[in-house]
């Protein structure tokens, strides 16, 4: 083997080892645990999972959250990114402020929104002072599933839109200014420039942002638990409760495998739906 190639493999070895020990092995382990009941190969864990009373609502809630949160976040982040291109002064400052929530842990973010929305929270105080409600109202209860859902959506939008924004801002900066100028000279207004030039050229960034956000949204957990306890069940939450409350690693692993399966399906969907043909790449 030529010396340089040997060196290359040697340099790669530590990270490969790291991935094998801390990633590939636990990954395989989860599959094995999910597919075994008392030492026998079986689909029993998946059957238990599917029969559980919380399974259907958890699956439905998770999917609904993705369907609502991800498109809203992409639209918001797109508008924010376009706004940023128009700001001339203090652009970086605005970007920094918008990305502050990225630095806050999701559990902390959930607690912030809990503080806002609880019975004695800020929002109730303000609504009460304005005379819009009579006395403290309990918003976050299992009796108000829509309010719970909206609260989680709001918290997630606040917390995680910035990651989409950062990806899109980077993508927008890759588009040479001359394309926009050429479009403008040849008659395109602001909306047409956005739709016919910016959006198509932003496809690779949109694809990354959608894949990343969808996978993260599938794993939504801490925010939901902080705001709703188990009143709004989600897939990741169920995996947690089966592992820690019921001490059943098998069913917990079955949830993990299901989440992985959906993640891969979504990723493949976005890779295909937003694929950029090689000949149309910016070069």
């Amino acid at each position, binding site marked *: 083997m030529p010396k340089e190639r040997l060196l290359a493999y040697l340099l790669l070895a530590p990270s490969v080892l790291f991935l094998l020990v801390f990633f590939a092995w636990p990954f395989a382990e989860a599959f094995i645990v999910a597919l075994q009941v008392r030492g026998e190969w079986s689909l029993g864990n998946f059957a238990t999972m599917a029969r559980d009373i919380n399974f259907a609502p958890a699956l439905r809630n998770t999917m609904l959250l993705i369907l609502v949160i991800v498109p809203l976040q992409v639209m918001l982040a797109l508008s924010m990114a376009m706004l940023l291109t128009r700001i001339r002064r203090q652009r970086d400052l605005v970007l920094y402020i918008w990305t502050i929530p990225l630095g806050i842990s999701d559990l902390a973010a959930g607690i912030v929104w809990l503080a806002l929305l609880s019975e004695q929270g800020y929002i109730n105080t303000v609504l009460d002072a304005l005379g819009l409600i009579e006395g403290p109202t309990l918003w976050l209860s299992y009796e108000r599933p829509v309010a719970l859902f909206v609260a989680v959506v709001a918290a997630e939008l606040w917390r995680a839109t910035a990651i989409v924004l950062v990806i899109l801002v980077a993508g927008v900066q890759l588009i*040479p200014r001359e394309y926009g*100028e050429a*479009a403008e000279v*040849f008659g*395109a207004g602001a909306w047409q420039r956005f739709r016919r030039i910016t959006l198509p050229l932003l496809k690779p960034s949109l694809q990354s942002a959608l894949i990343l956000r969808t996978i993260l949204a599938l794993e939504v957990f801490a925010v939901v638990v902080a705001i709703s306890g188990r009143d709004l069940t989600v897939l990741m939450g169920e995996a947690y409760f089966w592992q820690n409350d019921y001490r059943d690693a098998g069913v917990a692993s079955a949830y993990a495998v299901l989440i992985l399966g959906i993640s891969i399906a979504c990723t493949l969907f976005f890779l295909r739906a937003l694929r950029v043909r090689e000949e149309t790449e910016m070069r």
Partner: protein
Amino acid sequence: MAGIRAENIRKIFGTYEALKSVSLEVADREFTVLLGPSGCGKTTLLRIIAGLETQTSGEIRIGDRNVSGLPPRRRGIAMVFQNYAVFPHLTVFENVAFGLRMKRATADEIDRKVRRAAAMMHIEQLLERYPSQLSGGQRQRVAVARALAVEPEVLLMDEPLSNLDALLRMEMRAELKGLLQETRTTTIYVTHDQVEAMSLADRIAVMHGGRIVQYDRPIRVYQDPATAFCGGFIGSPPMNFIRTQPVEGGGYRIGGAAFPGPAAPAGEILFGIRPEDLIVEPESGPGLIDAEVGVVEPLGPHLLLTVRIDGQPARVTAAPDLDIRVGETIHLRPGPGRIRWFDPATDQAIREPA
């Protein structure tokens, strides 16, 4: 079709004055080249005319309309960009059709006009391709076709050939010239390449330091530069300048020869002459400039001589078969009527009193 008028255009970027009250008039169907070194403001002026940049003060008129406050798309212009700016995600056909689609032209009209523009630029066989599948020269053709397809009143070109290699540039230059003579579209063309400017322009506007220092037909700019800068910037090799003082009894002595000339403004004057206007004579004689040969470069069509006249460097082009050696003194006759005089303090040409 329409003429263009820029009146007293100023542009200030922060504390830097890029354009210092520039006025320019381009007649209907005229081809004007803005020529100058980088940083002279030529691209800024073009972008202001296009509406991509806003002037600090001044007015732009296209045809009989004041377009100063209008966005680019309402100015009736088309533009060819330095980096082509051909949209990578659209086919050549869609690129050329872009302006027509924005105008909501009918499918028939789009098809007809795209094919006509493509035929003019010889890219009919590329219509279904994407820009990344094209060479630089082909992309430039697409960019020009896109501009021609909308049949603009005014065509603006920003260094369109500067990214092409030398041979291709020469080819495209000739082709553009032929094409634009045919369409007779009012055109402003920005370049720093003096050969391009000489070749293409009806009139050249030479820009320097945020001003237009001369605006005239190419041959006039070449033969009668308004400033020493123009003489030095245009021509390769550039015009020679010999700094000198008047002699007693009037006139000047250059390399031992006496020349009448205009009065020196501050006791000094620049004697200017182009390298090809110095003719090498075999024998010394009255009116001949003595020059000491420093370097001889046989370039094929001519010899390029670097000489010293009164200790100051100058260049001379001579017939290729002359036997000239380094170190010898040659005798140069200025072509009749080819001597120019400049004020070294203001750079301005000083016309001899007729």
